[in-house]
């Protein structure tokens, strides 16, 4: 017996399969739930519905009802309710489910409609797939294979439109490839709130344009490339670099801010070619900032730290330094809001073994109310949850340059949080600083203060602190390792290794485990499986969590112990601060 559907669900029949879906679902999404593909171009789940491509035409009908009794009419042949099929096809995107709705997606009428629309879309489309970057992820290619006729009857001249237009610093437009679906226009207007794109001219000569003199330059412009179903909008950076079918996809997280936008890393043979957003309806929908897409470029940069000696030799060196400064408080650990949860857990272990004070470097900037939050560390909450820190790091002073009168300029990121450490160094108390990837000078220590201490530096890139460090452990970037972050919503999300690290760089977890072992003379696990057993046992919020079972879109953890803390984030997509955001004063 089938249980009666819940009140907010409606039962529909798609290609003979019954399914209960929430009210307000459209036919495309309902069909997706029963693994039926309704091809479409203009429809996008996060944009308004315009119904202009006509690719999602389906046949629909409703159960026939006796006008007198209102009782459903039963077909005597099949014994099932008789369906009144609408004689003309309807758009799946614009048709919301209603109780008893019947849909056919493979009937001759639908097949004919799709073949017609496919042919129309192709007649003025250039046949340049061999040189088109979209090839391999082109909806026009895929759907012409799946739903087209496979031959052309068009012998006329194709329309001529502008080629290779730079719409902005990062997006290139080929108007001849454009199928006028208007997704990019709607995205710019509705999501990025930067209404610069539009169609000029009319009919088949309609042409996508950025307003002359303006640019599609907002920090979300590359999302138009992602949602362009064809090769009209391409990424200027990625253009002609690599065929997409050669690329491996690895799930990751945007580390720019505490939003934690879900991403995909596209790589081949150890080299990353691009980052794109990954859908997470609770975090970033299907979007990500352009700025986050640049982050992979530092992976290959010339200032990556490289090891000159063997890891164990350096661990021994560090152990010696730790032994010389064994009294409580003479070592300080500067943890990082950019470290993973697992790294922060081990950082805490290391600090405990060293009887060291712990602090975190804060990074605070201006949020954009979309996918850039004020907290530019991806994992401050991880440090709270693991207990690495018990209160939020202090917000740093505004950099000197920003104190000028110009209030309109982009608010620079304030890096800081080390005032207590600075005082302890000045007081001669702290002799050794272990920094987990944080440049102490950038975070507010003076050169003189830095000169007073011995620095053990774990990190990826060269900076003032690594240069001044006594011992350096080159470690891995987010693209080269596995781990988790806790974003501003207290959502635990994981990232995975996309490419191997450079020669001589060691996984942060291994370095931290070895240092902890050296400091405490007890072995410490460094693999995620073993570490998560420890973490689950010791961290209440993670008591029921295991790394292996963490879904790709993450899980929310209990945030109540931290509810009273003055977090810096204001409102962004899918995030409303519990308390008003901390205002930044100049």
């Amino acid at each position, binding site marked *: 017996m089938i249980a009666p559907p819940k009140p907010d669900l409606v039962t529909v029949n798609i290609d003979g399969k019954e399914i209960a879906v929430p009210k307000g679902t459209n036919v495309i999404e309902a069909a997706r739930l029963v693994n039926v593909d309704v091809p479409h171009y203009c429809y996008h789940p996060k944009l308004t519905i315009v119904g*202009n*491509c*006509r690719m999602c035409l389906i046949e629909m009908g409703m159960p026939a009802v006796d006008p007198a009794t209102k009782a459903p009419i039963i077909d005597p042949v099949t014994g099932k309710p008789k369906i009144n099929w609408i004689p003309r096809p309807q*758009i799946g995107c614009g*048709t919301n489910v209603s109780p008893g709705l019947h849909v056919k997606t493979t009937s001759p009428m639908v097949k004919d409609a799709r073949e017609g629309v496919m042919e*129309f879309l192709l007649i003025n489309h250039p046949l340049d797939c061999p040189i088109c970057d979209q090839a391999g992820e082109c909806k026009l290619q895929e759907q012409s294979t799946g739903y087209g006729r496979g031959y052309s*009857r068009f012998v006329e001249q194709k329309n001529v439109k502008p080629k290779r237009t730079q719409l902005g610093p990062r997006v290139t437009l080929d108007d001849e490839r454009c199928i*006028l679906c208007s997704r990019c226009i709607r995205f710019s207007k509705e999501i990025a709130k930067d209404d610069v794109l539009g169609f000029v001219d009319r*009919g*088949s000569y309609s042409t996508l344009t950025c307003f002359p003199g303006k640019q599609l330059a907002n920090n979300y412009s590359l999302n138009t490339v992602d949602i362009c179903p064809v090769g009209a909008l391409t990424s200027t950076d990625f253009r002609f670099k690599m065929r997409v079918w050669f690329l491996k996809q690895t799930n990751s997280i945007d580390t720019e801010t505490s939003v934690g936008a879900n991403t995909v890393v596209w790589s081949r043979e150890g080299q990353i070619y691009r980052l794109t957003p990954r859908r997470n309806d609770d975090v970033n929908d299907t979007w990500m900032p352009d700025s986050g897409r640049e982050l992979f470029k530092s992976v290959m940069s010339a200032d990556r730290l490289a090891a000159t000696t063997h890891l164990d030799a350096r661990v021994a060196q560090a152990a010696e330094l730790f032994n010389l400064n064994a009294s409580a408080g003479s070592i300080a650990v500067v943890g990082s809001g950019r470290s993973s949860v697992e790294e922060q857990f081990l950082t805490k272990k290391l600090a405990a073994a060293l009887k060291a004070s712990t602090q975190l470097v804060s990074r605070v900037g201006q949020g954009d109310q979309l996918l850039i939050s004020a907290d530019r560390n991806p994992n401050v909450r991880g440090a709270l949850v693991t207990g690495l820190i018990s209160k939020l790091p202090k917000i740093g002073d505004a950099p000197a340059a920003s104190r000028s009168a110009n209030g309109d300029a982009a608010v620079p990121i304030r890096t800081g949080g080390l005032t207590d450490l600075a005082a302890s160094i000045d007081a001669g108390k702290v002799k050794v600083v272990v920094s987990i990837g944080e440049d102490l000078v950038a975070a507010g220590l003076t050169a003189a203060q830095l000169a007073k201490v011995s620095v053990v530096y774990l990190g990826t890139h060269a900076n003032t602190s690594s240069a001044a460090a006594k011992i350096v452990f080159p470690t891995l970037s987010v693209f080269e390792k596995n781990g988790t972050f806790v974003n501003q919503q207290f959502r635990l999300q994981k990232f995975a290794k996309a490419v191997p690290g450079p020669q001589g760089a060691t996984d942060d977890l291994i370095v931290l485990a070895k240092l902890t072992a050296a400091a405490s003379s007890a072995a410490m696990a460094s693999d995620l499986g073993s570490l998560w057993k420890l973490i689950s046992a010791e961290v209440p919020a993670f008591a029921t969590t295991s790394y292996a079972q963490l879904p790709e879109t993450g899980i929310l953890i209990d945030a109540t112990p931290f509810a009273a803390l003055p977090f810096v984030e204001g409102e962004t997509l899918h995030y409303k601060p519990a308390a008003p955001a901390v205002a930044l004063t100049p």
Partner: protein
Amino acid sequence: MAAPAQRRIIFQHIDEPGYSNDLACYVRNGGYEVLKKSVTRPPAELIDEVKKSGLRGRGGAGFPCGVKWGLVDRKSGKPIYLIVNADESEPGTFKDRYIMHQDPHQLIEGTMISCFANNVKQAYIYIRGEMPHGARILERAIAEARAAGFVGKNICGTTYSCDIFVHRGAGAYICGEETGLIESLEGKRANPRIKPPYFPAVLGLYQCPTIVNNVETLCHVKYIAEHGGDAFTKIGTPNNTGTRIFCVSGHVQRPGYYEFEAGKITMGQLLNEVCGGPLPGRTFKAVIPGGSSAKILRFGERFKGKRKVGAEMVDYDWGVDDVPMDFDSLGMIGTMGGSGGVIVMDDTVNMVEALANINAFYSHESCGQCTPCREGSLWMKKITTRMVHGQARNEDAALLKSVADQIPGRTICAFGEACSWPTQSFIAKFGDEFKQYPETKKAAKPVGAHELV
């Protein structure tokens, strides 16, 4: 059988010597008396009269006006707008032009009665951009009516207020489509909206309930308010009540506009008697009965079937000349009465070239929003233009038909039908001419034939 006499209700004063378009002349002829009476009646009563009248919209679709008004969402609490569709743009149609230029107050009075009946506080007249004088005449007439208390605050001394503004289009056929018109009135490209959910009666102008009525329709409302819905049904034939204005153009001796009781005149009477028949030495070849999007009829073809006369079903066997010019009869023989634009073509016309002309129009006017219409209309134009000016192929007829068949029923608005019906019907009725065209175009053109594309 001799043609009936014209019954001029809407066009009563059109071309009347001495009749001018100012308020004084209108009032002298009894103008605004109906409005004065109407504003003292319960609005629901007026709506009922219109429902009773069976008045069908004169813009082209023939949708019952009373039903349209009945669909208006009156519970939303949002203002209700009325838009006069004066975008007259279906090729072959030129009736509203004369109402607006010569008898604007008739339209204003009909509009105000309709506004009062529907509790509309703001109306707009969307007039096509190519009628600048018409817009000025309407603006002046509205100003006069406003000064006289027929438009604006406290109409005819009542507490009811409603204003009218004239809004000019700028050369887009698609603004005749009511949701395209609404978009245009909102200051946007005239891209028609998807329905559902954007039915004007619920989510129209500014997402408020909106009534869009044709100029002629609103003039009929004035007549209905004056004489009652029942009286209106006495004019014309059942389900085709009132009068119809036929706009005859093309190859007849006396083209022009003629107002008859709906369904009381046949095509043959209209063309041969009223319009004087074909030009000297020519014979009729084809006629498009309801604006250029209506399916073409070929003289010589016959239509057979059964139709309802009173309560009985009777056989009919009609030639083109025998077809009564009403919505239902024209619909029965596979075309439509549409906007009343009758375009006549004689034996000098080559049908490939005529279709090329029509296709050029529709491809130029497609808004370009949805795929089948945008691409299909231009493709058909490219084919027919190539046939005329380039190489014509034997297989083009079949290709044209197939392209046209991929459009209707799959588009956002009825433009899909409008742009494909000509091709479908030309090929169906004159397929022979299309197949022979590669040969025909090598031969000399008939004397008197004009270049069409």
